[in-house]
C-alpha cells in the first residue's frame, strides 16, 4: 500500500501541463466534497466535545483549585490527540467510503482499463487528486476543529464561572510549538491514510459490482485501523 501511495506521488512528476490542470480540477472538487462540505459536521462535533469536556473539567478542577489544568486538557486531550483522531475518523466515514466506492465503480465500469488503454496512468487521474484533496481537507478541517474546540472551551469555561482572559492565558501557556508541529504532522499522516487506503481498496476490485460495498467496507476498516496505529506511533515517538 505504501508503494501504491508513493507510486501516486511519483506519477505527479510525469504530468503534462494540461494533465496537471485536470488533476488540480479534480483535487479542488475533492476538497469541496471532503473538506468544505464537512466543515459543519466537524465544527459541531468539536464544539460539543470541547464544551462537554471543559464544562465537566472546570467544575471538578475548580473544586480543588486546579483550573490551570484546563489548558493542559484542551491542548493535550483535544488539540493534540482527539482533534486529529476525530477529524480523520469523520473524513474516513464521509469521504473514505465515497472514494473507495467511486474508484471501485470506475473499475467495474471498465473506466480504469479505458484510462490505461489511452496511456493515462490511473494514479495520475484518479488517485493523486484524491490524495492531495484528502491531505488538504484533513489539514483544513483539523484547523477548524481546533479553533472551534478552543472557542467552545472558552464558552464552557465562562459558563462555569471562569473569566475569559484567564481561560486564554491558561490555554496559551499550555500550547507549545511542539504541539502545533505534532498537529501538523498528524494532519499530513492521517490525510495520507484517508487518501491512499480507500483508493487502494477501490482499485483492487475486479469486475463484479458486488465487490463495491465490500471494497468500501474494507477500505474504511483498514483506514480506521491505520489512523489509530499511526496515532499510537505518534505517542510513542513524540
Amino acid at each position, binding site marked *: 500500500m505504501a508503494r501504491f501511495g508513493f507510486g501516486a506521488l511519483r506519477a505527479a512528476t510525469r504530468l*503534462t501541463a494540461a494533465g496537471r490542470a485536470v488533476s488540480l480540477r479534480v483535487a479542488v472538487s475533492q476538497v469541496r466534497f471532503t473538506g468544505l462540505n464537512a466543515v459543519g459536521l466537524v465544527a459541531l462535533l468539536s464544539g460539543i466535545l470541547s464544551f462537554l469536556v471543559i464544562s465537566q473539567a472546570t467544575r471538578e478542577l475548580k473544586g480543588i483549585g486546579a483550573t490551570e489544568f484546563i489548558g493542559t486538557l484542551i491542548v493535550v486531550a483535544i488539540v493534540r490527540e482527539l482533534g486529529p483522531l476525530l477529524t480523520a475518523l469523520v473524513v474516513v466515514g464521509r469521504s473514505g467510503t465515497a472514494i473507495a466506492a467511486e474508484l471501485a465503480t470506475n473499475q467495474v465500469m471498465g*473506466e480504469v*482499463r*479505458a484510462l490505461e*488503454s489511452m*496511456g493515462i496512468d490511473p494514479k495520475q*487521474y484518479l488517485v493523486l487528486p484524491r490524495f492531495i484533496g484528502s491531505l488538504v481537507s484533513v489539514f483544513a478541517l483539523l484547523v477548524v476543529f481546533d479553533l472551534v474546540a478552543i472557542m467552545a472551551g472558552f464558552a464552557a469555561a465562562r459558563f462555569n464561572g471562569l473569566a475569559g482572559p484567564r481561560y486564554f492565558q491558561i490555554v496559551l501557556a499550555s500550547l507549545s510549538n511542539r504541539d502545533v508541529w505534532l498537529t501538523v504532522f498528524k494532519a499530513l499522516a492521517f490525510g495520507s491514510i484517508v487518501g491512499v487506503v480507500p483508493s487502494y481498496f477501490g482499485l483492487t476490485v475486479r469486475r463484479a459490482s458486488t465487490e463495491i460495498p465490500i471494497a468500501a467496507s474494507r477500505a474504511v476498516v483498514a483506514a480506521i485501523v491505520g489512523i489509530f496505529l499511526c496515532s499510537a506511533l505518534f505517542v510513542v515517538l513524540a
Partner: protein
Amino acid sequence: MTTPHSPLPLVFDSIPIARNASVPFSLEVPERRTVAVLGDEDSGIGMLGGYALGLERPATGHALVFGTEVAGLAEPERLAFRRRVGYLPAGDGLLQNLSLRDNVALPLRFGSGAAPRDIEGRVTVMLTALRLTGAAQLRPAQANEEERRRAALARAIAFDPALLILEQPFDGLTARVASELLEIARGGESAEGARRTIFITGQEIPPLILRRVDQVYRLTRAGMLELETV
C-alpha cells in the same frame, strides 16, 4: 521486448484465448488493412485487444504491436506506447463523470504535452468530424448509444494512431452509422489502402460494413480461425 524483424502493426503469436480451444490463436494484421475477427462471446476474442495493448498478459505466446510486446515494457513506457494505438473497448469505456467533450480531450490533456488551446482546437475539430458538436456537453448517461460510440471513436483516434483496435464497434448501430464510423476510423484512403490499420473484434458485423473490410475471420469454438469470403 522489441522484435526488429516484425514490422507488422499487429501480430498474435500462439495465444490461448478460449478454454476449450484445440489450437492457440495466431494472426498477422497487415499494414493499412482492415481485418475483422468474429466469434461467439465465449470464443475469447474479447481478450485480444487487452493482450495487444498489454492490459492483460497471455499465459503463453505473444501479442506484438509494431514489433513490440507492450506487456513487457516498464510502466511509463507501456503507457506512452499505448498512445500509438487507438482503442475502442466494448461498451465504449467513457468516463461517466465527464462530458463527451472532456472524454475526447482527456487523452490529449494527459498525453500530448500540447498547449491547452491547441488541445481544445483539436477536440473541436474531432467533435465536428464525428458530428458530436450538439451533444458535446452531455454526460455519457445523457447521450444515446450512437453519440457515445462516436465519442469513444473520437477519443480512440485522438492521437491519430496508425493502428486502431475496435471491440464490438458496431453493436446497436444502424448500418449507415456503422459505415460512417468505419470510414472515419480508416482515416481516408491512399494507393496502398486505408491510412490506418484497423483490427475489429465482435460477434457480427453488418453486411454493409463487410464490403469495406479486407479480411474477415471467424473463430470457431474449437479455436480454429477460418477466413470468410467477403
